[in-house]
């Protein structure tokens, strides 16, 4: 429509793409239903979605999930708190000298590219089967995207802006507060979002490999007991929790970007 304003069109486009996304998910569920109820796929491999729904209902109503959720979220919060503070601090310190950037940036980038989850057995050996090993692993893995983007954020501040601030008499603190921080903030924030996501992935992942409790532990436990509908219900629950957490963190990032 020619008369429509850009904003109107943008809103309409967003609505249309959301509609397609919802339809895609609905089609998947319908296919799932058909596969189990009409096409005779083994119920042990793929349980009936209706049964899964009632299991999920039972999990939510009974509050059985609370203990595992609390453990997983506590691990996530602790891991992220450690990696965010250490990553931003280390990144800032490295970014203050070109020499240190040349030395440490490739080092961190190299370590970031190897699958650190391979060290999980070592972490379990050091920190035990409890939450400590998950926190340590999650913190290690999420440290790298945070430190790398902090180096990038503080290391690439426009020199002209620094010179301009200095020429007007900015003190070290003023330079940090009014020039370096706002310039680096959006990039650091992106690193924090990436760090948060990989922390969540690695914590749930390591819970499924070696743990005593947590959502990942619960899923594996149900799989071993062949309780497929309940296991699928927990998977759906974890997916929903992960989606909500990512939505929250993306919203926070968008807000932080708007007003540094």
């Amino acid at each position, binding site marked *: 429509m020619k008369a429509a304003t850009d904003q109107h069109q943008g809103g309409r486009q967003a609505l249309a793409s959301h509609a397609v996304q919802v339809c895609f998910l609905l089609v998947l569920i319908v296919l799932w239903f058909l596969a189990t109820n009409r096409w005779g796929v083994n119920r042990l491999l793929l349980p009936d979605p209706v049964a899964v729904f009632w299991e999920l209902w039972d999990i939510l109503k009974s509050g059985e999930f609370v203990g595992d959720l609390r453990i997983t979220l506590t691990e996530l919060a602790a891991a992220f708190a450690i990696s965010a503070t250490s990553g931003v601090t280390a990144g800032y310190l490295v970014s203050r000298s070109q020499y240190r950037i040349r030395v440490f940036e490739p080092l961190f980038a190299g370590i970031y590219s190897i699958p650190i989850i391979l060290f999980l057995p070592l972490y379990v050996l050091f920190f035990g089967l409890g939450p400590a090993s998950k926190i340590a692993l999650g913190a290690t893995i999420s440290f790298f995207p945070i430190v790398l983007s902090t180096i990038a954020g503080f290391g690439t501040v*426009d020199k002209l802006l620094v*010179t301009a601030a200095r020429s*007007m008499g*900015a003190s070290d603190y003023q330079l940090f507060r*009014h020039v370096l921080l706002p310039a680096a903030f959006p990039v650091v924030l992106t690193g924090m979002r990436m760090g948060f996501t990989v922390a969540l992935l690695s914590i749930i992942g390591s819970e499924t490999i070696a743990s005593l409790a947590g959502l990942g532990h619960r899923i594996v436990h149900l799989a071993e007991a062949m309780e497929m509908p309940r296991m699928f219900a927990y998977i759906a629950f974890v997916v929903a929790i992960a989606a909500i957490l990512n939505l929250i963190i993306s919203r926070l990032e968008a807000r932080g970007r708007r007003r540094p």
Partner: protein
Amino acid sequence: MTSEVAIRIDGVSHAFGEEGEAHHVRALRDTSLDIFRGELLCLIGPSGCGKSTLLNIIGGLLAPTTGTVHVSGKRVDGPTPREIAFVFQENALFPWNTVFENVDLGMLFQGVPRAQRAARAWRALETVGLKDFAQHYPGQLSGGMRQRAALARALSLETEILLMDEPFGALDEQTRMILGEDLSVLLANTNKTIAFVTHSLGEATFLADRVAVFSARPGTIKEIITIDEPHPRKPDFVTSEKFTKIRNRLYGLLHDEVRQTMAQTMGSTP
């Protein structure tokens, strides 16, 4: 313009990097110059001749390898934000702050008490004609308006000296013409001392009380030309015979130096 010296440059040389290193560049050689209170002095020369380097040395952003600079009788050994304000080539505004916040921040850095800042910011924005755009971000403004904002930030600092490093360099011809005229009016009203680096012969002729012509790198001042025409200068000065004569003279002085610089950068010996 008076005969009182605002900036005394005495035997200043500057080299980037240590002697013997691969990136050792002698940018400026044994340059001496007095800039008088209230005059607008243009520095013109081939690229790389060290005119921006000299400006940065005057402002205390660079330490000269040899020689001294005195501003109002005091030796420069670091930024002197109470005496000197800079206007840079472009985009030296903080993009995350509005125009008003940019002006305000400059005064915060300089140490102006909070109570005086707002009034001074509005006055500076009014002078450059940007009062209605105070709440815009730099990204929302045209190049010419951004340079007006940068000028407002420098004016709000109320320094006696303005150092301008190709402030209109990235702007189109018409915009720089208008900004040049406005600057001439401003100069007539405020009696500021201005050192102005430019590539444009026309801009130098239109704005300057004196033009210092630099030689090719390592640059030094080859000749100083006085332009005896009161500020504010009228647009019809540009079409006068006097203007053309001075401009042609500058062209002649500069031409050989630019040729020599081109030869240097293309790798052959001059």
